[in-house]
């Protein structure tokens, strides 16, 4: 009996250790570091990149609401005027910022680099410029009751590792626009899969939005980022909202023939 118990412990330990290692090693990608979003399609501007990131198929109700502007201001902070993606004649002014240096943060990478920090209980995704960072809870917790949640630009995210990908589930977002003509509310669910390339130099982030009230089918697109060298450091974005020049319109220079 004693021998059989010892043999059983050895067998169980070997089996469990093997399962444990197999479960953890291939499934946890190394995505920690500094990343910069790439324009892989040659769109030439951030507005154009967003226009190329899919083509959302909205429900008639959502399309009507979007047209009426009832679901928010397209994801932009109030007062922030979007580049309309149209060419501007020489000397024609257009405003690109209201001068407010405070940014709400957001889900997708913007023109700044972003940093991913992986720890046991959470993953942090931090943009270099101001605004809310993203906290991805990895400790098995569930989303809060949305009736008691104040929506934010980054929502509430939980995650896990699956087949070499970081999988993030997010709800509780502020209503507004989504890249590729999509919309969102606090109830809209975003699922993200972050998968590094085999050499670890590229990161493919797949975004899938689902909400039967808004989408006829899941709205999916991808963004690719490039890993920055190990010696890179974050820039500290600085901007003075009290500086009147922050509100200056941009006037494109006259182009030479």
């Amino acid at each position, binding site marked *: 009996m004693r021998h059989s118990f010892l043999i059983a412990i050895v067998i169980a330990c070997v089996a469990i250790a093997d399962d444990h290692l197999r479960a953890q090693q291939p499934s946890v990608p190394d995505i920690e570091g500094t990343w910069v979003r790439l324009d892989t399609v040659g769109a030439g501007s951030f507005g154009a990149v967003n226009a190329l990131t899919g083509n959302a198929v909205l429900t008639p109700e959502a399309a009507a609401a979007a047209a009426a502007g009832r679901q928010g201001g397209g994801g932009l902070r109030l007062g922030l005027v979007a580049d309309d993606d149209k060419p501007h004649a020489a000397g024609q002014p257009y405003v690109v910022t209201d001068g407010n*240096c405070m940014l709400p943060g957001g889900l997708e990478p913007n023109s700044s680099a972003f940093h991913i920090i*992986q*720890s046991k209980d959470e993953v942090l995704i931090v943009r270099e410029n101001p605004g809310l960072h993203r906290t991805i809870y990895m400790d098995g917790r569930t989303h809060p009751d949305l009736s008691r949640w104040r929506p934010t630009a980054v929502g509430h995210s939980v995650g896990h590792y699956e087949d070499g990908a970081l999988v993030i589930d997010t709800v509780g977002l502020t209503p507004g626009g989504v890249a590729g003509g999509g919309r969102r509310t606090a109830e809209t669910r975003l699922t993200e899969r972050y998968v590094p390339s085999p050499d670890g130099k590229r990161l493919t982030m797949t975004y899938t939005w689902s909400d039967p009230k808004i989408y006829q089918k899941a709205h999916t697109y991808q963004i690719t980022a490039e890993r920055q060298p190990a010696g890179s450091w974050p820039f500290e974005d600085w901007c003075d909202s009290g500086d009147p020049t922050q509100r200056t319109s941009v006037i494109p220079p006259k182009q030479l023939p």
Partner: protein
Amino acid sequence: MCQQLRRTIRTAGVVACAVALSVGAPSAQGRGGRGNAPAAPVDAKDFSGYWELPPDGHDGRNIPAATLAPTVTRQKLAAVDAHDAKGYRWCYNLGVPNVMLLTRPFDIRISAGFMAIIPEYTAAQNRWIYLNRDKHIPAEEYEAGVNGDSIGHWEGNTLVAETTLFHPENGILGIPGGGFRTPESKLVERFRLLNNGQVLQVISTWTDAKVFRTPHTYELRYTRLPRGYESRPSAVCDPYNDERAQLFAGPPKSTP
């Protein structure tokens, strides 16, 4: 016999599972960091977790008055006060040292390359203390924001962080206890766990011959928040909110 062996294996499996999970290496979901729960024994270098400065002077602060250099005039102090008042009015991002004085929690995570201090207060800038280099960024390559350049190393269980290359104007300049930071200022912070890992002690020492007659040292102690804490993002500071701006429009008026 076979059934008995299977039962025994099952029993042993439970034992082995408990052993395996308690010994556990990195967990199936984890990589790099360690947990922030008060486990025994505590890893004396594990600062990862959410930390909060106690809300008032009952606890967590030992900030003596700074001894200022004779070259620091009243006019200079008034100018710094005016600069900082403008900064609060216009929602300047908070950085070193004021980011460490917030009574809203911050999240610390340590990776191979740095220790990140991420405040949940959105008007504050994130801090990055580099553990993978022992020299500051060359001044001619560095564009200062509100924090300066921080590098750190371990002395036993104490993380010693040195910060310099401050910007002369960006952010809030005032230093707890008196004085202000300049591009020549140097800050050394010593981070250490106390009370079985439930308190994070940070002893800060400023040196700047143009500002302080003697090095200015103060101590802050942060309380570890419980496992499962959820960050509560603050409202974004809006410099163009007219009602908010009234707060900075002079002495308060008791009449509507």
